[in-house]
């Protein structure tokens, strides 16, 4: 056990080294904060979706669903009247945009409050409200959720205009729901509750409902399934939640992995600082051992110090994480809304488990990082054996073995990456092992690099140059850890930057292939990548009649059921044959593939083929159509970056053969030769007046798509910056300690006549060399990481092909950051050396 004096000794040392202790606290705090913020963002998105699902699904055990056009009303009548299933309720669900309130997305829910009362709490009190009869009788009347009302100052009697599909409808606010608990209806952030009939009219679903909710047991469910007409299905209501979790799991895992990287870099920082503290105090530790302090107590002393600092850092990190989390929640929610589903999350969720996890990670990382230095401290011999040279000698003697171990870890990581199959977690573990292995090779690379640089530096900067290179090697036990930490952080910057740049370049290229029309007409959308509205099928003919319009191409985006789960189906009119560049694999020439599509085949996107193991030739997809299940042969695999779940593309003539839905989601307008795009755009706008539809030029659509792309990677970029900040702090701390440790040596040089300017030059040369070394080593490591992220992680997460685009600016930037961090580290010790006299410096231990 530690004695009181030993504890005091440790605490006083931490206080005496305020700068280093402060930086270590900051490093741990940032690491914990990043992990916590991402955890919060993921948990908030999950909770937001789960609450809204629970509130909407209520106590329903099963749902009857159909294809894109919905379940016929008649089925509901049959259920209740003919089959006697009274625990059933019709639900009409859709989304719209509150156009007067910052284009907020709203969830429209049409229900029958009486039939629904057994499914969802809070409705009975609602129906008892005086004047509730108008809910059924007043067209376009609705009850809104309290969050929507509070945010926009809406009261009963107010109107709010909602854009749904190709029309704008004013909704009369009949009342505001005040739910008793968050699982109830009214807690839904952007809810508008309407009568079934009103919602059907608003959403353009006459005589159809989105689904019928049921409370039935398994036997009843099976009996219903047997009696349902073709096309209709009964499914457990839990399926929706599972689907949402599956949709976002890869996205969230990627964020978690990246956030953990910040903590790993933080661990390097702690390791480095604790090691420095041990090495600096080796004489004191030796004296303690001489006085009878046991090696176990020395071990405990070092670990306790790290634990104290890590605990303070972790606590600070929780506070910082809460602040960062608010930004992270906004960014991830936006991305989830853009790419996956509408998750109205406004409040970050920070529960006790997340706080404990953050604290535990911070403390664990601190203690874990301190173990090796603590073992080093515990093995300290009495003072006579404590020459620094012998310690560095030992480090150099172990270097070949350490490097060999690093090589083995790299190979092991590569093997794990190779053998990990589709497992994302194992792939990340493989990458982490490779990075750690490369970090272990850093000391050997540093020795080699300095041997090469030394003579050249000697020629350029004379004695100072030779000294700088040798100092880096002579203090290898400290310098190599700092170099490795900075190298890892810079590699992450390079890897992630190259991945984002390559991805962006690929998407830009792909947009050029897919966006061929001059103008696009669509409804304002709650989703970023797929237009989900149902526009009137008569619209294209109206537009074709306008002057300057050569052709109008229609597009329909729907989700259909299949045994594989929900499938995003893209329906396009078959008039325009697709370019060869669109295809990843094609079973023939583009003309042959397109002929097959017109004849009834489909083409599937890359992620779809990857997820469902569809072979390039001879594959098929079975979808639930309105006529029952049908198997479509796959004629090719195409590039598509709109959905990581994948899409199936079908010609409209085939879609109309199997589905009754005739709506369209958006249109591409091709101009006649010589037509003025602005003029045609204005005419289209005039023709579509009152519909709320948007007419956008090709360039604007591309820009919007890239804005969504940039938004998606905003959080990744933020995490990358934070990882670099943690490393920056680590390097500044490590190099600062190294420079402070050499105060006597530097004072000796001054005593011997080295002018102050040369002192600065020497310090900058030493730290700059280390920064440069880290920068140089990070170039191949970063390239390797970029390859792993693009060709392994991205593929296994999303199934996209990304062409690597190597931007030299990224490498230059990494080098500059490395050198800048290192140079900055020399400033404080330099200033301190200026403040004290040479005599004071010479007295330093």
């Amino acid at each position, binding site marked *: 056990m530690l004695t009181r004096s030993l504890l005091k000794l440790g605490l006083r040392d931490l206080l005496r080294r305020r700068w280093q202790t402060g930086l270590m606290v900051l490093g741990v705090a940032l690491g914990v904060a990043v992990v916590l913020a991402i955890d919060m963002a993921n948990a908030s998105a999950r909770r937001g979706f789960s609450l809204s699902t629970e509130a909407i699904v209520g106590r329903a055990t099963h749902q009857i669903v159909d294809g894109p056009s919905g379940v016929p009303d008649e089925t509901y009548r049959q259920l209740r009247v003919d089959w006697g299933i009274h625990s059933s309720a019709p639900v009409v669900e859709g989304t719209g945009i509150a156009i007067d309130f910052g284009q907020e997305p709203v969830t429209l829910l049409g229900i029958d409050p009486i039939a629904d009362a057994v499914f969802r709490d809070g409705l009975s009190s609602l129906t008892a409200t005086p004047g509730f009869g108008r809910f059924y009788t007043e067209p376009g009347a609705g009850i809104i959720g309290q969050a929507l009302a509070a945010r926009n100052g809406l009261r009963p009697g107010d109107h709010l205009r909602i854009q749904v599909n190709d029309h704008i409808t004013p909704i009369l606010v009949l009342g505001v729901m005040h739910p008793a608990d968050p699982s109830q209806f009214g807690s839904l952030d952007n809810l508008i509750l309407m009568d079934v009939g009103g919602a059907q009219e608003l959403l353009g679903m006459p005589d159809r409902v989105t689904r019928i909710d049921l409370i039935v047991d398994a036997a009843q469910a099976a009996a219903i399934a047997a009696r349902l007409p073709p096309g209709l299905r009964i499914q457990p209501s839990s399926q929706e939640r599972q689907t949402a979790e599956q949709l976002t799991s890869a996205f969230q895992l990627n964020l978690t992995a990246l956030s953990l990287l910040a903590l790993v870099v933080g661990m390097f920082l702690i390791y480095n600082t604790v090691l420095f503290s041990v090495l600096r105090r080796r004489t004191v530790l030796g004296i303690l051992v001489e006085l009878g302090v046991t090696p176990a107590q020395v071990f405990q002393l070092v670990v306790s110090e790290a634990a104290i600092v890590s605990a303070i850092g972790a606590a600070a990190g929780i506070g910082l994480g809460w602040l960062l989390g608010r930004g992270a929640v906004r960014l991830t929610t936006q991305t989830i809304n853009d790419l996956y589903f509408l998750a109205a999350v406004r409040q970050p969720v920070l529960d006790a488990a997340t706080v404990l996890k953050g604290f535990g990670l911070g403390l664990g990382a601190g203690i874990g990082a301190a173990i090796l230095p603590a073992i080093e401290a515990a093995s300290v011999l009495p003072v006579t054996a404590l020459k620094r040279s012998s310690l560095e000698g030992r480090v150099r003697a172990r270097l070949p073995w350490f490097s060999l171990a690093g090589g083995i870890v790299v190979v092991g990581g590569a093997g794990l990456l190779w053998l990990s199959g589709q497992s994302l977690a194992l792939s990340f573990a493989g990458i982490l092992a490779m990075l750690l292995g490369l970090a272990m090779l850093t000391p050997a690379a540093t020795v080699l690099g300095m041997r090469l640089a030394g003579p050249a530096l000697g020629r350029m900067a004379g004695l100072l140059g030779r000294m700088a290179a040798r*100092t880096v090697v002579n203090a290898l036990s400290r310098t190599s850890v700092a170099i490795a930490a900075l190298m890892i952080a810079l590699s992450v910057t390079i890897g992630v930057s190259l991945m984002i740049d390559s991805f962006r370049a690929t998407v830009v290229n792909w947009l050029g292939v897919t966006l061929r029309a001059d103008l696009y007409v669509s409804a304002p959308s709650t989703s970023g990548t797929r237009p989900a509205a149902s526009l009137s099928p008569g619209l294209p003919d109206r537009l074709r009649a306008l002057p300057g319009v050569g052709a109008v191409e229609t597009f329909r985006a729907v989700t259909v059921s299949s045994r594989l789960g929900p499938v995003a189906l893209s329906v396009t009119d078959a008039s325009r044959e697709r370019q060869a560049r669109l295809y990843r694999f094609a079973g023939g020439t583009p003309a042959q593939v397109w002929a097959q599509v017109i004849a009834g085949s489909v083409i599937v996107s890359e992620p779809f083929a990857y997820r469902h193991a569809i072979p390039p030739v001879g594959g098929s997809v079975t979808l639930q159509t309105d006529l029952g299940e049908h198997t479509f042969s796959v004629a090719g695999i195409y590039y598509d970056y709109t959905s990581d779940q994948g899409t199936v593309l079908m010609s409209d003539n085939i879609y109309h053969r199997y589905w009754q839905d005739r709506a369209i989601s958006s249109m591409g307008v091709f101009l006649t030769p010589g037509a003025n795009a602005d003029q045609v755009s204005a005419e289209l706008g005039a023709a579509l007046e009152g519909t709320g539809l948007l007419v956008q030029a090709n360039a604007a659509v591309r820009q919007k798509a890239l804005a969504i792309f940039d938004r998606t990677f905003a959080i990744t970029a933020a995490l990358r910056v934070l990882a670099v900040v943690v490393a920056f702090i680590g390097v500044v701390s490590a190099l600062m300690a190294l420079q402070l440790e050499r105060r006597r040596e530097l004072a000796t*040089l001054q005593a011997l006549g*080295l*002018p*102050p300017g*040369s002192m600065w030059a020497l310090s900058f040369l030493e730290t700059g060399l280390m920064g440069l070394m880290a920068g140089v080593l990070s170039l191949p490591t970063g390239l390797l990481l970029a390859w792993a992220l693009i060709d392994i992680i991205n593929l296994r997460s999303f199934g996209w092909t990304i062409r690597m685009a190597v931007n030299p600016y990224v490498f230059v930037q990494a080098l500059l950051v490395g050198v800048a961090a290192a140079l900055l580290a020399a400033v404080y010790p330099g200033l301190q050396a200026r403040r004290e006299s*040479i*005599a004071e410096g010479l007295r330093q231990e």
Partner: protein
Amino acid sequence: MIRLENLSKTYREGAEARVVLREISVRIPDGEFVAIRGRSGSGKSTLLNLIAGIDLPSSGEVVIDDICLNRLSARDRTLYRRDHIGFVFQFFNLIPTLTVLENARLPAELAGLPSAEADRRALELLARVGLCDRPREFPDRLSGGEQQRVAIARALVQSPTVLLADEPTGNLDRGTGETVLALLTELTRQMGKTLIVVTHSRRIAESADRRLLLEDGRLIADVETIPATG
């Protein structure tokens, strides 16, 4: 000639002021070997640091050959020290990243001497201190006595007028200490340098031309050693 005029040094320790040297006035002619003695904390090392210009007096002046060191800028003091003063430390203070030869030639190199000339001087001095066979060794391979011999070579390489030594044998065993001291005195006498040594040792002090005795920052004795006759 070194002239110390009313030299005082006070250190601030929080709100308190600690006087380390009080009104020291001494004149040391060229070529003299002076030993400064006194108990620990008497101000010996501080006095040496003031003479070297690596610390500044609170009041008074340090004048070497008509140049008042404490009126020079930090840079000029450094350059003066480089060209005119050699320093030998108790803990040798060799630069661990430089070889024996590089350590020895360091002041000459800092002064901008051509490399060949710096090497020639350093090797010559290393030969005189008995280390000409190990110029490429790093300091951690040397014994304490050997390290101090390199430090002496380093101190003399610029042929300074004044050589200052702060307890040069304090970290050596007695035998080695005596050898090192003999070397130091012999070389400085041969070269006609002024040698000022801070020491606890009565034996070293007795071999000096003159002994200054400090107590609580005051110069309480300034004794010339009577050369042995007959």
